[in-house]
């Protein structure tokens, strides 16, 4: 069976195990069609060349110097940012504590206020009921007597 394009490409790059490599070699020796296809791929891939960039020591040093200076600038910025952030965090914590204290005082004050209100209501009610007792009239006493007679008229 003929080799696929994928197999031929992997064979070109020697990206197959020993067993397959030997098999592909044997196959290419015996199959002219595959050999021709392989030669085409090989020719094409060998034509794709790329020059290697070689940098001089000076160029390298300059590049590295540039990078290090950028790092220095960015780390300075980071330091400033960190300082601002620390201050911000401190202020935020301080204001949160302030809000918490204010809320505590507010709720305590509210609770005390409502307690005082309840006491004043009870006091007023007490005054009113004592006044009512003092102001019982003769008619009220007659009503009471009638009520007693009415209940007494029942056989038991």
């Amino acid at each position, binding site marked *: 069976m003929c080799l696929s394009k994928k197999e031929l490409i992997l064979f070109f790059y020697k990206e197959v195990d020993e067993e397959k490599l030997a098999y592909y070699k044997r196959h290419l020796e015996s199959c002219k069609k595959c050999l021709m296809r392989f030669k085409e791929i090989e020719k*094409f891939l060998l*034509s794709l060349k790329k020059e290697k960039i070689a940098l001089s020591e000076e160029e390298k040093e300059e*590049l590295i110097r540039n990078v290090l200076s950028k790092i220095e600038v960015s780390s300075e910025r980071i330091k400033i940012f960190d300082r601002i952030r620390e201050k911000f965090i401190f202020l935020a914590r301080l204001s949160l504590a302030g809000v918490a204290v204010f809320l505590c005082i507010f709720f305590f004050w509210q609770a005390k206020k409502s307690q005082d209100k309840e006491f004043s209501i009870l006091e007023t009610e007490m005054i009113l009921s004592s006044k009512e007792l003092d102001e019982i009239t003769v008619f009220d006493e007659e009503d009471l007597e009638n009520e007693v007679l009415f209940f007494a008229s029942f056989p038991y």
Partner: protein
Amino acid sequence: MEKEKLLERLVDEFLQDNNEKIFAQILSLICEDVINLAYSFTYNLEDAKDIFQEVSLKIYRGLKKFKKRAKVTSWIYRITVNASIDYLRKRRSSSELKEEYIKSNDIISDIERKDKERILKKAVERLSPQQKKVFILKHYHHFKICKISQILGCSESSVKTHLTRAIENLRRLVKCV
């Protein structure tokens, strides 16, 4: 391999000391590789240098959080590949090179001038981002497929498929012009 070990050692030292001199040594060690990889995407040395600076800053910031789940080299190459793709995307969105890469007439005129290298570069540019990444890492930088899968964070079979499709597309693009 020696380079990789040295890099790992330097990264360990940097994580302990947070010393800029050690970071400079790390940069010196990876400088050429990062620039070459970035150049494979941009075909422009100045752009590759810009990408190197960006990658270096990302490495500096990321190293403090680096948890060694992957190899340092794979991590650095991944940052470089992503930074290069982002750089190209930004450059393309600025429409500077949009017309240059999309117009097929341009490619035809290149054939007339028999500027094969230029055509191939443009053909690579026309690949999908994933195909481009895989092709560049494999063909120009000779990484093993397992390493590419680590760098790109995908399976080996996916890398193989992307590589095959990238080469098929490249051949088609070159043939059609």
